[in-house]
């Protein structure tokens, strides 16, 4: 099947600065793809190119089978949804009126507003003015607006930034539900935990170039220190070698009924990013 996004040797220059430098990757249909990097790494530039707001300087990008050429394409825009970190919702209007505007713009069915509000847990706030909502609820309004027309491809830019864990979890659940219905999700974030929770695959972007691209699990395994294993037993925490002698010690704790937990020493995605790029994500 044709990928949702195909990027090949993409470059974008701003005067003498390269914001993106020969970036290539593909996002399969139905995938949740994380595009991770610190501020200024080129994430927003990539989204702008993929959504037709910017023209690439070199290389090519295809979105849902159509070339992204820096021009507005209304037919294409109808098939994608965009939620930015800067939510851009109308504060003086009610939640319902905000969504009713975009229902009209996308020529979506009449019932879409109620259904979408239900899916993001805001059905009870339809008549509330947006400026009266909490930050978390505003983020959910922005998400509802992006989902309203059931897009084939959803671009999310820091969807849970500045949200408390409960609100972040609600948004993650709504995104998973959408993904189960077949929507491809392109997520840009510098939140490693969010990427690991949501994404099927992630790409690390640093100074406009891709440093790594794989599933979170494979990335962690490929950078894991397999020589030791951490064991928590009833008498404390132990680091044992990953060899025959270590296996005997672990077996001893097990036989004595003292083993509480056992962990292979995998680095976090943040650790891997630092190792690959020498930079932190925040």
């Amino acid at each position, binding site marked *: 099947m044709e990928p949702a996004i195909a990027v090949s040797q993409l470059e974008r220059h701003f005067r003498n600065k390269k914001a993106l430098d020969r970036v290539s990757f593909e996002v399969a249909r139905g995938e949740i793809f994380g595009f991770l990097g610190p501020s200024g790494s080129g994430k927003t530039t990539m989204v702008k190119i993929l959504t037709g707001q910017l023209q690439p300087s070199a290389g090519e990008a295809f979105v849902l089978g159509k070339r992204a050429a820096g021009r507005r394409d*209304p037919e294409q825009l109808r098939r994608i949804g*965009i939620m930015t970190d800067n939510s*851009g919702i*109308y504060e003086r*209007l009610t939640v319902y*009126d905000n969504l009713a*505007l975009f229902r009209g713009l996308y020529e979506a069915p009449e019932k879409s507003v109620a259904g979408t509000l239900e899916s993001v847990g805001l059905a009870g706030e339809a008549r509330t003015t947006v400026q009266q909502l909490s930050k978390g609820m505003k983020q959910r309004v922005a998400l509802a*607006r992006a989902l309203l027309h059931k897009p084939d491809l959803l671009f999310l830019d820091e969807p849970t930034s500045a949200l408390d864990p409960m609100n972040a979890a609600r948004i993650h659940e709504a995104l998973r539900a959408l993904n189960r219905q077949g929507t491809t999700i392109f997520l840009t974030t510098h939140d490693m935990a969010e990427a690991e929770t949501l994404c099927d695959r992630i790409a690390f972007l640093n100074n406009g170039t891709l440093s790594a691209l794989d599933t979170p699990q494979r990335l962690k395994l490929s950078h894991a220190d397999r020589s030791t294993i951490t064991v928590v037993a009833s008498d404390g925490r132990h680091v044992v070698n990953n060899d025959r002698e270590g296996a005997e010690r672990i077996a001893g704790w097990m036989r004595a009924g003292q083993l509480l937990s056992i962990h292979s020493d995998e680095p976090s995605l943040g650790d891997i990013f630092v190792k690959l790029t020498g930079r932190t994500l925040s």
Partner: protein
Amino acid sequence: MRFSLRRLRAIAIKEWKDAIRNPQILLTAAMPIAFSFLFDRKEASDPAVVAFPLLLAVSITGAFVQANMVAEEKEKNTLRMLMLSPASPAEVLLGKSVATSALALLVMIGSLAVTSVPDANPIGLTALILLLLIAFLAFGTTIGLLSRTVTDISIVGLPLLLVVIMGPMLGTSLDMGWFSAVVDWLPTQHFVLGLTGLLDSGSLAGIGVHLAALAFWCAAACLLCLGVYSRKRYDK
């Protein structure tokens, strides 16, 4: 993609609901009505004074309210979301203009209720008002697009709009040749002269040159607006 009345309607309804909840826009729209009390035409002999309440209603509502709507969209990062929807530039700009025009119509009715309706050919009067309104809507959109914030409107547009709006009044009272020469070109001056012509002769033929001049201003303002729009539509 085809032009969609449903999209245009959605934008116009949004703009209207947003405008009537915006104290800044309501205050701006109320100004021409308040000024109408100062320009009661029954006591005026100067044609500029006769036309002034209408001029204020069309220009202040058309230009400043439109500029405010567009600049606020840029400031709050909502214009980008409209541009990233399937709505075409024409649908977005026309939707905003429909809402602003409805407000301008209400302000004109309010102003005329104070000063009384000029006794002029209604077709000619409607044509003059419509052309002036289109020109000011385009000016307002351009100023809004050039402004990064609502506050910037006063820097970007206020000096220019004051000259354009006040020109016909000041041109007759100031004894400055160069200024009068500039005023003669202004759309507002053609509006005043056209209205004077209608009041004097009552015929459309007598104001043809002013209608043509206003039509030229409409075309120029719309072209300028589209040019600026193509460069400035994506707010930073």
